[in-house]
């Protein structure tokens, strides 16, 4: 197995390179459809990372839900907008400021969550089987039971919101 270690590292660097490059292209490409396609590539690279972390279930879910379903929804939204004339409505400084603020807050949340993961990794060092579906289920339905039940409320809220916004009242 010693021969495998460099290969994993090469794969890690390759996948990271693809993920970062495509992530940057999502931001920089002018055409929104191209942005979505680059985002699909980013998701595939991240799914590759999941497989490297020995979390095959998460990798498959990532491809099926994110690269499959959610990206299709993104494309739907882009198609719902009128893209005939290359209008750029987001030139407002106030909007840009709000976007920077929201992005910064998201970064803060992500950094905070990574801090929690660090201590979790210190408690269980060198367990390569942690990402498998069986261990995932044990953790999800015992330690993270409350967030799991809360997520159903999140899904319920999303359902009600989608119906509220997207459905006109039938008289």
């Amino acid at each position, binding site marked *: 197995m010693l021969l*495998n270690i460099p290969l*994993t590292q090469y794969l890690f660097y390759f996948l990271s390179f693809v993920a970062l490059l495509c992530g940057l292209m999502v931001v920089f490409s002018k055409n929104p459809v191209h942005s979505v396609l680059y985002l699909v590539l980013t998701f595939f690279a991240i799914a590759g990372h999941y*497989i*490297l*972390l*020995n979390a*095959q*279930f998460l990798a498959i*879910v990532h491809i*099926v*839900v994110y690269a499959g*379903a*959610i990206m*299709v*929804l993104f494309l*739907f*939204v882009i*198609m*719902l*907008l*009128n*893209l*005939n004339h290359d209008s750029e409505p987001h030139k407002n400084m106030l909007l840009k400021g709000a976007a920077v603020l929201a992005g910064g807050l998201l970064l803060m949340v992500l950094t905070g969550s990574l801090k929690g993961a660090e201590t979790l990794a210190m408690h269980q060092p060198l367990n*390569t*089987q942690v990402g*498998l*579906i*069986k261990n*995932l*289920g*044990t953790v*999800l*339905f015992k330690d993270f*039971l409350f967030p*799991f*039940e809360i*997520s*159903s*409320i999140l*899904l*319920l809220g*999303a*359902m*009600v919101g*989608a*119906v509220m916004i*997207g*459905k006109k009242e*039938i008289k």
Partner: protein
Amino acid sequence: MNASNTPFDYFPLILMFIVAAGFVVFTMVVTHWLGPKRKTKIKLDTFECGIESKGNARVPFSIKYFLVAILFVLFDVEVIFMYPWAVNFKELGALGIIEMFSFIALLLVGFYYIIAKKALTWED
């Protein structure tokens, strides 16, 4: 699921992806290389079923499609939560059933709302 589960057990899968992508690239390159090319204005024209195209493809479409798609994704996520539950079904026991059923019950409330609002009926 055996104990020595490593990412390298999935090497055949990677091989399959490489072969699949390679086949696509190979056939596309070869057809462009072998096929004759006669580029006239009529041949390069956009057409659909032999009828001349009018306007362009970027036409905003009805939100009904989006509504169905997003509701599908929400229930899709719900089903994905069932996989780890099903694998651990025996270990979790009765508590697991209560957990999952309360989860499903909340989503059934949403499903009832969708049905009551007639969000899935396809009118006009």
